[in-house]
């Protein structure tokens, strides 16, 4: 998540043609509600859904997995979805910090003959350190405490195929609403 959004932010910082439009498009997933994203993703990633159709059309049959229906892959699909959505916040955070930086440092590096990779690694990323730390902490909090909506929608309210996408939040929710802890029900009788 951090690396991906950092890369995108650095690419946008190069002022590629239409970077403002890209910025808007990249931030779009973040303002959509998570359940909507999850429902749409669930439709797209069906076994005969659009994503697998495209993969088969590209003759990547080995990649046309049962993204949501198979217990081994489901959690990774959820993770991909979360990365896709939460990276948007990172891109905006990094880009805003980049645009607030002093441009003369980049110009100086350019005059010294530093290429794009050197400029990014030695000039820009050290100055982004605080924002990167902030985003990493925010992501950790998100992934520990705010993945309920994804797994609830994708896993059909029960933690996916079997228990393959069960997370702590969903466990607590199930324990509270359905009294699904078998031993607690026995004790309450």
């Amino acid at each position, binding site marked *: *998540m*951090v*690396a991906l959004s950092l890369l995108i932010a650095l690419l946008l910082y190069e002022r590629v043609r239409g970077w403002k439009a890209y910025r808007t498009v990249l931030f779009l997933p973040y303002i959509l509600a998570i359940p909507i994203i999850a429902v749409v993703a669930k439709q797209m990633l069906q076994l005969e859904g659009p994503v697998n159709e495209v993969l088969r059309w590209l003759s990547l049959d080995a990649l046309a997995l049962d993204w949501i229906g198979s217990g081994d892959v489901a*959690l990774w699909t*959820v*993770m991909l979805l*979360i*990365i896709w959505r*939460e990276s948007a916040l990172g891109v905006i955070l990094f880009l805003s910090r980049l645009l607030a930086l002093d441009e003369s440092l980049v110009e100086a590096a350019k005059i010294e003959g530093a290429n794009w990779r050197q400029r990014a690694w030695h000039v820009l990323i050290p100055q982004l350190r605080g924002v990167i730390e902030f985003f*990493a902490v925010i*992501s*950790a909090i998100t*992934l*520990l405490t705010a*993945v309920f909506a994804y797994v609830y929608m994708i896993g059909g309210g029960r*933690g996916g195929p079997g*228990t*393959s*996408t*069960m*997370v*702590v939040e*969903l*466990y607590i929710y199930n*324990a509270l609403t359905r009294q699904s*802890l078998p*031993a*607690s029900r026995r*004790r*309450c009788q």
Partner: protein
Amino acid sequence: MRTHSRLAPWLFTGPLILLLLVVFGQSLVRVVEFSFKMVRGIDGPWIGLRNYQLVLGQPLFWESVGHNLLLLLAIP
């Protein structure tokens, strides 16, 4: 003047600290208290650590924790 300026930050932040203590601190203490009681409405009898034994003894709980930790891989 010296003591006044030492007191000033506490006077400014005091109301908020009090509010946070009441809103968050109190409910935090109540949650810990509930965790030692039987799940029966709002006030069950004290049962000590049985709730913890129940939850920590379930493989499903540990699987959930494992999935949460696996999701942390998405950070880098």
